[in-house]
């Protein structure tokens, strides 16, 4: 019975990750992050992704505040925020978010306000999609780990 649960979760994880790579939501850099995880930094991937979320949401909020201001004209500032977002997204392997930020940045370089507003909407959409997918992934992984732990604890009792 345990075997079935584990198999199903394995398949879920695999399918979810494969899908994210297929869709281009994630790229190879995401896998690089895993190489940076070890027993001295066992939660590295989880932590760096959460920090990415915190930082990105701050930037997105600032971008929205800037663009919502009717007297807005500071496209350079938009560009600086976007440089940050492009950089951090690419560092964690969030390829699609990175790409739509680049497109948004092009609009800001042309001082194109409607283009910027559209760009921001697209970035917000892609960002939230990524965040939801990551939450789902971490949830499935947690279930997986919990099942394994339950199994090993049970086994431990049986053996003794």
């Amino acid at each position, binding site marked *: 019975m345990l075997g079935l649960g584990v198999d199903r979760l394995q398949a879920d994880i*695999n399918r979810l990750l494969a899908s994210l790579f297929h869709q281009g939501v994630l790229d190879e850099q995401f896998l690089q992050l895993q*190489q940076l995880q070890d027993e001295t930094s066992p939660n*590295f991937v*989880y932590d760096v992704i*959460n*920090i990415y979320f915190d*930082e990105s949401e701050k930037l997105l909020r600032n971008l929205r505040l800037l663009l919502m201001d009717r007297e807005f004209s500071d496209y350079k500032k938009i560009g600086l925020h976007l440089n940050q977002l492009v950089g951090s997204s690419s*560092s964690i392997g969030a390829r699609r978010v990175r790409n739509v930020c680049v497109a948004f940045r092009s609009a800001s370089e042309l001082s194109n306000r409607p283009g910027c507003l559209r760009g921001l909407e697209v970035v917000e959409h892609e960002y939230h999609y990524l965040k939801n997918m990551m939450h789902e992934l971490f949830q499935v992984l947690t279930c997986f780990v919990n099942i394994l732990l339950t199994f090993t604890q049970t086994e431990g009792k049986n053996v003794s």
Partner: protein
Amino acid sequence: MARDGGVSCLRRSEMMSVGGIGGIESAPLDLDEVHVLAVDDSLVDRIVIERLLRITSCKVTAVDSGWRALEFLGLDNEKASAEFDRLKVDLIITDYCMPGMTGYELLKKIKESSNFREVPVVIMSSENVLTRIDRCLEEGAQDFLLKPVKLADVKRLRSHLTKDVKLSNGNKRKLPEDSSSVNSSLPPPSPPLTISPESSPPLTVSTESSDSSPPLSPVEIFSTSPLSSPIDDEDDDVLTSSSEESPIRRQKMRSPGLD
């Protein structure tokens, strides 16, 4: 020399506990250790570069701007330079695009200083712009890394550094192995995760994970060995490289049509 401010403070205490990122050593550094000063205005990038460097056995000080870097090096105040005789920095790695002082400007200042002009400086940038690369190399940058920076890039830098420091210190130092050194420090057996574009057979789970192994965090479940095949996406417009490709990456940067 204890200083605060400007050195990035990470939110997670686990990351803080990986020593060095939140503080600056006040005692002279162990001559056997490679000390790297990393400069990047992005918190996420600082964390990643710091981790990349630590995993290749470097001691790291990470700061968030060129000004902080100069402050750390004592280059912002000529009077203080005498105190920094004991400051040992083996490598400076800096982002190019930073508000205030760019990585290029920082590079110039370092090369102008008598104390630090011999220290190799590496520039990182997410933009593959030939004129930018050439300008940095002309100004004396040791290397130019395209972001996102990969473990293979840092290992390559590290191996060059080790040779240099060996010569100057006369200390014997082991060169890091290729992927085996990363593998050896990984957690106890977890289920290997194979990823391929096609739907693949279920993962094999090692249920002999012993009762004495520590509880797995959500993400320890990921692969413990580097995946053999990179994800094969169709149109790869982002520059990516496999681990042995670093020289090719440099060539890639110089080929036309990539600007």
